[in-house]
């Protein structure tokens, strides 16, 4: 198992490099000009200088190499420095100074991080600012979705073709079919406009320090979480139902019943544990997809997470930001695919990779 994990980890490096190259080439081929917003009165030689300052003058392979170096060599240095100097967990370690920022007073070697063309500040700093909002909403939505989906799947499989099962299947179908950009406005009209129960803009500056502010935080999270959770619930409850149905007719279930075990024990212990094996891997596989889905939800509810960051960066032609964000999404997909495969091997003793 360990060798398999290591082999997959090693193999994921070329995959990620290839994906980074695809994204980079796509951005290179794109005709958008970052200098388009510069006024026409600026003379061409100044424009050429500005282009060079953005790193645009060099050939594509050098630009790609520089991005790789910045992303995998300089950004980790900054991260380690942050951990040892200011972070809550590791600040007891001796301070490190791997990263030297460039400045007028710096003599000798210095490094530049990935800089956003929009804000002229490091891309990763902005991403780190935006990430908690996305993680809160997306993570909560995923947990809620899974918690709703599992009981629905279990019960509809146990009572196959009952009224509950048919209603569940119908609701799953609706969850598949209604896109989030329709459920979002629908919920806003219903709960914010007509009933006035919930706020329809996610306030990211809101600080939770009392019971009232906590209640407000819950209230503003309900709608985005429900919109995202509907998609998750639809997919996972379907898998759960199919997996339970596969197991309910197995011989070991009959044996368990023949031993005289109670129905609750048979279903909730014997069948459920075996049915969870494929479902757990599906749960891991669907995580990156929900980050993609979060882009639309963040736009609808004005959550300023990384999805919204990507949209604004795209419209502003901010290529380093787009490149880094898309790569982060790709990284998440590769990571969770790996987690799913390894989990499958750990949970199911019949699966042997070696």
């Amino acid at each position, binding site marked *: 198992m360990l060798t398999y994990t290591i082999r997959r980890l090693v193999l994921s490096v070329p*995959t990620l490099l*290839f*994906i980074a190259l*695809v*994204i980079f080439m*796509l*951005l290179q*081929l*794109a*005709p*958008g000009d970052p200098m388009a917003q510069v006024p026409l009165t600026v003379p061409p030689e100044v424009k050429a200088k500005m282009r060079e300052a953005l790193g645009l003058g060099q050939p594509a392979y050098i630009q790609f190499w520089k991005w790789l170096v910045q992303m995998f060599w300089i950004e980790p240095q900054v991260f380690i420095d942050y951990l040892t100097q200011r972070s809550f967990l590791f600040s007891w370690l001796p301070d490190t100074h791997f990263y030297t920022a460039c400045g007028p007073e710096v003599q000798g070697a210095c490094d530049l991080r990935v800089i956003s063309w929009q804000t002229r500040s490091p891309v990763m700093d902005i991403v780190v600012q935006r990430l908690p909002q996305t993680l809160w909403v997306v993570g909560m939505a995923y947990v809620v979705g899974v918690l709703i989906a599992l009981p629905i799947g279990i019960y509809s499989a146990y009572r196959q073709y009952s009224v509950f099962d048919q209603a569940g299947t119908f609701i799953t*179908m*609706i969850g*598949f*079919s*209604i*896109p989030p*950009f*329709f459920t979002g*406005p*629908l919920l*806003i*009209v219903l709960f914010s*406009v007509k009933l006035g129960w919930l706020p329809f803009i996610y306030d990211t500056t809101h600080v939770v320090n009392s019971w009232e502010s906590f209640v407000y935080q819950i209230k503003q999270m309900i709608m985005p979480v429900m919109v995202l959770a509907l998609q998750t619930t639809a997919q996972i409850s379907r898998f759960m139902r199919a997996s339970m149905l596969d197991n309910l007719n197995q011989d070991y279930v009959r044996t368990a019943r023949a031993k005289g075990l109670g129905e609750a024990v048979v279903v909730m212990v014997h069948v459920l544990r075996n049915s969870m094996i494929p479902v757990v891997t599906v749960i891991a596989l669907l995580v*990156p997809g929900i980050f*993609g*889905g979060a*882009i*639309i939800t963040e*736009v*609808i509810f004005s959550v300023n997470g990384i999805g919204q960051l*990507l*949209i604004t960066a*795209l*419209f502003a032609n901010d290529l380093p930001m*787009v490149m880094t*964000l*898309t790569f982060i*999404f*790709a990284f*998440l*997909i*590769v990571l969770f*695919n790996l987690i799913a495969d390894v989990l499958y091997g750990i949970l199911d003793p019949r699966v042997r990779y070696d």
Partner: protein
Amino acid sequence: MTDPATTPLNALAEPEITRPPRSQWRDVWDQFKHHKGALLGGGFLLFITLSVLFGDLIWQLDPKKLDIRAKDMRPIYTAIWDSGAKVGWNHPLGTDQLGRDQLAQILAGGRTSMAVGWAAMLLTMLIGTTIGVAAGYFKRLEGPLMRLTDLFLSLPILPLMLVAVTLFRQPLRANFGPEGGMFILIVCVIGVTSWMQTARIVRGEVMAIKEREFVLAARASGTKSRGIILRHLLPNVLSPIMVSATLGLATAIITESALSFLGVGFPSDYPTWGKMLADAVDRMQEFPERVMLPGVAISLTVLAVNYLGDGLRDALDPRIRGR
């Protein structure tokens, strides 16, 4: 009580053939008929397709015609609970803030959405089937093609689509006109990013079928690879392709609407369902029906396609058929 002497005679008699042998597609149709959801879905899809194709022959208002005097009209059914509402039979579903007729816009928008959906689905199936058959049939191609599929599966699809559509909008618009360029771009982007599931399914089926005796017989009688693929393999993998085609149609419609909703789709004066929904969100407190109508249209179409796919899957599976 029958006469015992006549019984053996009856048994010996040639069994009379009462009906011709049934074709496979007749069996499929018989099974399909039992799935009510699929029938309804198929019927609704047909209805939507016909109405977006020929609706403008019946409802001849121009969807782009501005009529500021008749702006912000409500749908005719609003008059039931609000007698003071601005309604009229000349605009049964109301008008928008520029006085464009909503019914005509829904029809025109549906035509775009369905055209993108069908074209993207066909492209997806073409790419997916080609790669799947090539990977399943030719041993040498299997490794590289499947690695390619895995790579595509780990690409972040929605962000990449956004990137591609935003960045390549200008040159295609310049070459093919604002609508044509966008149509080509969106169809290609959806097709290139969603063929992977089809390719995997088709490859699996092809690998199973090519070991069967009839393929061996075909090869023994001197059939070339081309003939085997076109005459023996493709007809046999048609059912999984059809099932994944319905899924592809549903995804393509949703993706196109999502791109339009995020503001990277068709130009602003060109109606599609997603675009109408996105434009209406700003004023949905006063005019909720402008969000509801295109939203319901998208959702019902996709729901119909999904049910159709469900029914097709059951009907095309010979293990379930006849139950």
